[in-house]
């Protein structure tokens, strides 16, 4: 996190020569680089009269510039974080203008993933707003000759009540800019009772642009003289071009040339995959030319990979003792004594992101420097890989962040941005690389395929006396280290080592799996398969012992307590356990809350209908979900109603949070109904929405009700936590309706659709 510094003078150092280089919504400000020029790093906030923070600037006319340093992919963080600044500033939201930051380490972490934009930047945003408010108050007090302590703020003005004097922020900006920037200790943050926006929320700053088609996504970026590229990539990860013939491709009207992109040197990380690019006047010509390429591939060692056989290998691994990652008591001793024991295997296949905007990036390499425009979750990561691929310093790469047409984690991996930059260097012109949907699905960083083995012995009342769980999945670190086969703590923590049940004997294990495709973060990540296994197994045990699933789940969660992670490598999503302890009482509370709101046990369910429940904490947010299903004789599953209760601590933007959880139900529906990527001889079998279907309006839950716990605990994530419990609750509901237990996703494996 960058500290607040007085950066007012900074622009003089950088020369202040370049106009705002950012892509501003609806208006395209593209600065062209001239030789020897400094790179365009400045924002309007930097140039504003009062500029006490990198995130904020105030103009004499009262305009407040707020810099959105995180990427906007639909979670509304581009609006919600500035809203926090505006609240602490006591600013009029109508006079706020948001500008999107380029990739720049002065903003701290910009990788918009892991559901932590609000959590990690809430304090920084408050501090930025409070700093400016402090300085404006000081300036007014000085002007009026009264102590600052008797001055306060109202909407966009400083007020001295005793004399009924007011001064507008704009008119104070210049005087305030001459004052020293206060330290953190001098700042007095607004009390909750004085909040204008926090907890009330706002619609997206970009709402009108989004419904009028004026919003600029990466797909819409444009610079003069640019050409379009479409790339035929090696069908198998690590493959290479053996030979190619582009004669027919070059005959297509509008095609300029073809360009070979070098294969990557393992590990893949964020490097381009290699292949042959067709460069053309427009997207269509590039796509047509690409179809005419004739390429012979050397597929390399991953050609032996078949996902069916791999599934069996994972399952076999999960049946053998694995690496122990958490243990309580002695499960083996209990298992040795026999008793009522249950076992089950669960499986979740590879999943693709399939954001609505396929990957795309525009790059211009000129005079040894690169400028890129991309829908990226990770602009600093894009700078790094572009610099590495081009052999130039990171400081010579400017990454403009457009709006993202969805991200879900895929757009935190900037391989596509590097591809555009490499091509621009080779072609000598700005190049926009457009991925097709087929490219997007075949060359993803997939959510890991995972096999989970569960075993429990039940004591009196059906409560487990011993619980063993093993997961085996190719880990995300394999993209950075080809030898990485075990889950890392960052992903083992996701719904696995943090199993919250009150168990006398517990062992959590993880087994090895080698990756043959690129594995990456996808909305909710390892929580998807871990949550599915634990919450399905819980439901199975409830039914096996004749207990009500809700009551059984609450029994396992047990009495409110704080989980002790002594001896467990538990990163807690990067937060401290002091600030964010794992409190089972909060999971219990959302479970009771959702049951109460839904009317669990009080509603009648006819033939072919059923309800399921699941509770899961992820990204520091506690969620419980109830799903109601109707399954007809053809096995078609309808979801008339979903209820979700969540405790995410302080919720800055409840409206956006409700939207995220409604969306999570749909995302979870896609995972459960049809989410499946498979591979044959190393190549991905799926290609577009006909074979990688995602939920449509008639397949998605008809109504999702979201209940938010009113909490003063520090803010936690909202983008991802809705997905994991939904998937298990849906499958539990399907069992209740049909008696079919879904252990291997997707549900199509069970004749359901």
């Amino acid at each position: 996190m960058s500290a607040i510094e007085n950066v007012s003078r900074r622009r003089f150092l950088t020369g202040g020569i370049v106009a705002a280089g950012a892509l501003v919504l609806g208006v395209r400000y593209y600065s062209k680089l001239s030789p020897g020029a400094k790179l365009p790093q400045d924002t309007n906030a930097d140039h504003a009269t009062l500029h006490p923070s990198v995130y904020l600037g105030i103009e004499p006319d009262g305009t407040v510039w707020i810099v959105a340093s995180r990427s906007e992919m639909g979670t509304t963080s581009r609006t919600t974080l500035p809203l926090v600044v505006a609240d602490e500033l006591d600013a009029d939201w109508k006079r706020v203008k948001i500008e999107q930051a380029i990739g720049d380490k002065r903003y701290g972490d910009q990788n918009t993933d892991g559901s932590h934009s609000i959590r990690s930047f809430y304090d920084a945003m408050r501090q930025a707003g409070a700093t400016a408010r402090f300085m404006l108050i000081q300036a007014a007090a000085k002007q009026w000759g009264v102590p600052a302590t008797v001055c306060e703020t109202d909407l966009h003005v400083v007020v001295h009540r005793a004399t009924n004097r007011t001064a507008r922020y704009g008119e104070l900006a210049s005087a305030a800019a001459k004052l020293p920037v206060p330290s953190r200790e001098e700042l007095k943050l607004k009390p909750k009772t004085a909040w204008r926006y926090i907890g009330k929320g706002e619609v997206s700053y970009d709402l009108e642009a989004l419904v009028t088609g004026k919003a600029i996504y990466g797909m819409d970026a444009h610079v003069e003289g640019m050409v379009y590229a479409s790339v035929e990539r090696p069908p198998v990860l690590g493959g290479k071009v053996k030979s190619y013939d582009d004669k027919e491709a070059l005959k297509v009207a509008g095609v300029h040339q073809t360009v070979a992109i070098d294969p990557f040197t393992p590990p893949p990380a964020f490097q381009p995959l290699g292949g042959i690019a067709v460069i053309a006047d427009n997207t269509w010509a590039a796509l047509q030319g690409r179809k005419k390429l004739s390429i012979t591939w050397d597929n390399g060692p991953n050609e032996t990979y078949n996902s069916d056989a791999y599934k069996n290998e994972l399952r076999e691994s999960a049946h053998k003792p694995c690496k122990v990652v958490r243990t309580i008591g002695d499960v083996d001793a209990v298992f040795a004594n026999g008793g009522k024991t249950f076992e089950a295997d669960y499986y979740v296949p590879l999943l693709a992101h399939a954001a609505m905007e396929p990957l795309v990036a525009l790059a211009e390499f000129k005079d040894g420097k690169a400028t890129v425009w991309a829908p990226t979750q990770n602009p600093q990561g894009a700078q790094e890989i572009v610099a590495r691929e081009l052999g130039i310093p990171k400081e010579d790469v400017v990454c403009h962040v457009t709006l993202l047409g969805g991200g879900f984690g895929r757009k935190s991996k900037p391989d596509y941005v590097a591809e555009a930059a490499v091509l621009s260097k080779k072609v000598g012109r700005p190049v926009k690389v457009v991925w097709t949907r087929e490219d997007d699905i075949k060359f993803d960083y997939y959510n890991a395929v995972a096999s989970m083995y569960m075993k429990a012995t039940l004591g009196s009342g059906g409560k487990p006396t011993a619980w063993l769980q093993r997961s085996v999945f190719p880990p995300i670190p394999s993209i950075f280290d080809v030898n990485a086969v075990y889950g890392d703590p960052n992903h083992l923590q996701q719904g696995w080592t943090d199993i919250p049940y009150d168990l006398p004997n517990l062992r959590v294990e993880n087994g090895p799996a080698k990756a043959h495709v690129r594995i990456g973060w996808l909305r909710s990540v390892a929580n998807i398969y871990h949550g599915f296994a634990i919450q399905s197994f819980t439901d199975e045990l409830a039914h096996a012992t004749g207990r009500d699933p809700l009551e059984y789940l609450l029994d396992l969660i047990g009495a409110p307590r704080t989980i002790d992670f002594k001896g467990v490598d538990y990163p807690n999503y990067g937060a401290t356990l002091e600030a964010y302890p794992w409190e089972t009482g909060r999971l219990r509370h959302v479970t009771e809350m959702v049951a109460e709101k839904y009317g669990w046990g009080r509603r009648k369910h006819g033939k072919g209908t059923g309800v399921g429940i699941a509770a899961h904490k992820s990204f520091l947010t506690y969620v419980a979900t109830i799903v109601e299903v109707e399954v007809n004789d053809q096995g078609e599953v309808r979801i008339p109603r979903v209820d979700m209760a969540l405790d995410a601590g302080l919720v800055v933007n409840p409206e956006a949070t409700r939207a995220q959880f409604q969306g999570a139900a749909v995302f979870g529906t896609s995972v459960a109904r049809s989410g499946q990527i498979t591979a044959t001889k190393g190549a991905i079998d799926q290609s577009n929405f006909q074979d990688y279907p995602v939920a449509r309006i008639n397949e998605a839950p008809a109504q999702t009700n979201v209940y938010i716990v009113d909490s003063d605990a520090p803010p936690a994530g909202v983008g991802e936590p809705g997905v994991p419990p939904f998937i298990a609750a849906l499958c539990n509901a399907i069992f209740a309706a049909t008696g079919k237990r879904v252990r291997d996703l997707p549900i199509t494996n069970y004749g359901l659709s």
Partner: protein
Amino acid sequence: MIQLKVNGVEQSFNGDPEMPLLWYVRDILGLTGSKFGCGVGLCGACTVLVNGQATRSCVAAMRDVAGKEVTTIEGLEKNGLHPVQKAWMQINVPQCGYCQVGQIMQAVALLNSKKKPTDHEIDEAMAGNICRCGTYQRIREAIKTAAEQMA
């Protein structure tokens, strides 16, 4: 030479007659409101109106729209916002927003043919338009809101 009208303006095109309308409006006319999502008519992000009918512009060849009137989001409403756009804002439908232009064009076509669609009719008409963020519940609500306002 292909002649057509886009948002009320006469245009002529002498490129590849097989080029889909989507790439013509985006790359050649610079009207980027219509989006590329799948390229095969499966997602609806590219939906425009051709002679008033909702059409997947990614699979409509230029030769097939010769002599026709194309309306993209940029030409949907001359003055201000169309009632469907207003309803989309009122219900706060979009998340990432990428599919929403296609959703809106599809909804406009639906409401032009059915003044007061039922839930089932909405689902049928909108089933070709994917929203990966999952805003369907709000899309349904916004269409009903727009229907009331247009009545």
